[in-house]
């Protein structure tokens, strides 16, 4: 092996070794000046691996008939659900709006040990019509730092709000929410504000306090402004929530799935074990059939697999059970390019070429077939990504990442390693390449 080849070979091995280390570092790896590189342990897990509730919510009117919401209304609904989850302390959730299908998806993770005994009622609670109320704040309790409403009828209800929107004060530039009330609301509010000057009125969604502005003057024309929110976002959100108080629909679950964390983690460990077993079996197969290049293919496969894990972790792709199946499938597909190339190299050796030129020609001639084969798989995976839902999307992602990486490692890592090893004297035995006789291959 010449010095240059030696360097190349060990450079590739070193890169793969580093990647492997990065992929399996339990808490990620901190690199000064760059930040933390997340490892396989940081991969985000879908409900089917860690347990949780997935629900698809559709807007329905009071009588349970389908309701056609506007995009604004969908955003309001999303905000309400987020508030309700905040109130339950569920922060690691995903609430997403599908504007074209007019639906919301909610994903609530469940950690091992925590229990939501009844997913049905949880979802039902989330989808209830929002109840927005303006209530008088109990000043005796407020003195103790607790902002709660006095009992009794609310001053206003969500239905009294005609409009609520964000505006910026032209004089001091503060972020405000302007509210317009209907006739009934105007009357009630005039009475309450004249009674409660210099006291506070709380705006509640369900039982959660959104804001508790001070009353400065009696408001008799049904138009008021809540002043002094800290940021634009806060003010916009408050306006949205107050507006949502008049949301004329509830959200019904069209599909619900709930998976227990115990079964989820069970599935995860089964998935990991089967991945390791599959990896070992594929490597054994490659060793038996392709000997020396097979060994190199296994090293490249390790590189491909750990890079895939790193990519998934780094791109923050959510991993599901089908996603794990996708990784394991990629292990099997990952050596395909190698098989095609090595078979070609064997043929070239058999046709009497020297080892070095056989390797060069083999890689070159097999290239188009490998490229085309990977491209069609990529087409399928891309369409799947577009049409698939939840867990299937995760499969499509892993497949795309896997196909691209396997193509790259086959034409780079395998090739560099094989070329440099070919310079080695011992490596020149044809047996090592699985070539039987020179003549019989010439068909």
């Amino acid at each position: 092996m010449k010095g240059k080849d030696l360097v190349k070979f060990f450079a590739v091995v070193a890169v793969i070794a580093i990647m492997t280390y990065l992929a399996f570092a339990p808490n990620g790896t901190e690199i000064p000046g760059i930040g933390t590189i997340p490892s396989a342990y940081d991969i985000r897990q879908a409900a089917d691996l860690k347990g949780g509730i997935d629900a698809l919510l559709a807007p329905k009117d009071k009588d349970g008939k389908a309701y056609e919401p506007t995009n604004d209304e969908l955003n309001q609904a999303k905000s309400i659900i987020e508030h309700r989850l905040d109130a339950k302390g569920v922060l690691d959730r995903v609430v997403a709006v599908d504007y074209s299908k007019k639906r919301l998806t909610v994903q609530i993770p469940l950690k091992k040990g925590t229990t939501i005994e009844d997913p049905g009622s949880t979802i039902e609670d989330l989808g209830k019509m929002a109840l927005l109320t303006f209530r008088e704040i109990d000043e005796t309790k407020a003195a103790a730092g607790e902002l709660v409403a006095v009992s009794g009828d609310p001053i206003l209800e969500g239905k009294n709000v005609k409009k609520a929107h964000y505006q910026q004060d032209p004089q001091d530039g503060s972020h405000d929410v302007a509210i317009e009330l209907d006739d009934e609301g105007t009357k009630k509010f005039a009475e309450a504000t004249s009674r409660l000057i210099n006291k506070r009125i709380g705006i509640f969604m369900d039982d959660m306090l959104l804001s508790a502005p001070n009353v400065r003057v009696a408001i008799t024309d049904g138009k008021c402004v809540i002043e002094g929110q800290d940021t634009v976002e806060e003010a916009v959100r408050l306006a949205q929530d107050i507006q949502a108080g008049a949301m004329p629909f509830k959200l019904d679950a069209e599909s619900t799935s709930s998976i227990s964390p115990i079964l989820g983690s069970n599935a995860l460990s089964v998935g990991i074990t089967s991945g390791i077993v599959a990896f070992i079996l594929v490597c054994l197969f490659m060793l038996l059939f392709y000997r020396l290049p097979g060994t190199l293919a296994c090293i490249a496969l390790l590189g491909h697999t750990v890079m895939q894990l790193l990519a998934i972790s780094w791109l923050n792709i959510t991993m599901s059970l089908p996603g794990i199946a996708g990784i394991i499938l990629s292990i099997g597909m990952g050596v395909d390019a190698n098989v095609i190339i090595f078979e070609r190299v064997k043929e070239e050796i058999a046709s009497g070429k020297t080892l070095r030129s056989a390797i060069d020609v083999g890689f070159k001639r097999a290239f188009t077939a490998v490229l085309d084969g990977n491209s069609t798989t990529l087409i399928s995976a891309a369409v799947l990504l577009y049409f698939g839902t939840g867990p299937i999307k995760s499969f499509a992602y892993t497949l795309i990442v896997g196909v691209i990486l396997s193509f790259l490692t086959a034409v780079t890592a395998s090739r560099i390693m094989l070329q440099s090893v070919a310079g080695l004297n011992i490596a020149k035995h044809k047996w090592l390449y699985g070539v039987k006789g020179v003549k019989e291959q010439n068909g």
Partner: protein
Amino acid sequence: MVDIIGKRYWFFGLSILVILAGVVGYFVHGGFNLDIQFEGGSIISLQMEDGNFDTAKAEEEVSKAINKKVTAQKSETAASEGKEKIHMLVLNVAEKKQSLSSEELSKVVDTVNKNFTIKKDTQPEIRNVSPFIGEELLRSALWSVFIVSILIILYIWFRFRTMSGGPSAGVFGVVGLIHDALVMISVYAIFNIPVNESFIAAILTILGYSMNDTIVIYDRIRENSRLSRKTPIAELANASIIQTLRRTINTTVTVLISVITVYAFAAYYNIESVKVFTLPLIVGMVSGCYSSIFIATPLWVMWKQREAKKPTVSKA
């Protein structure tokens, strides 16, 4: 040399037999067994304290509570940690196309809680899909199969446009893919396996992957036809198949090793969602390898031979 092209009708026959069996299965079972994901319905699994519970009683009590027909089953699963078994009570709303409201779901869980011991600190597993959303999902799934087929035809046509008969190669490559999809569907119809989104995902994966083997063979035909222009197409194709046979089979074997491993683990630990995903992949992989060698290439050869016989073509 083995004459694959010459014996092509035997291989066509075998495929037709499988697909016919699928058609028979379809009518015997009265259509496909659509999973609740596509048809709508409810399945609720509860982890129980032990295996001592009466499914008949569970059926009766839950039906009463929600006023819908319910079937109950027991299932036992090995846990990956420890030797303890996981006992599940699986409740299925018996009439398909009936999903439960959130309220009804709560009632089901309450009723079971009242009558039996649900294991502490466990969550019920629920799959509840309204028929409407299922139909929508099915429609988009079928669309995606259609779009993938079109895109692959275009791609193959583009890549093989320099090969004489490239476009037809693309078309017959896709005939091979359709064959694979049909075989997968047939196996599902024969064994009445529930069809869901994973099945569609498996079909799409196979459509993309199965093309690999066909491309390897086509690629070799393309290369060989440059080397020897006078060899008859049938001979050329046959030689190309034989020369690439080992890689066609080995690429499939490596993938099969992985997928069968996953299936075996999923079957042992009873992870249904992985089982229903990997089984069609296995069927599709085998079929894809078979169709590349025995269907797509021989059909394309027949097409080329017919073209060559046309009197308008001056020289073959």
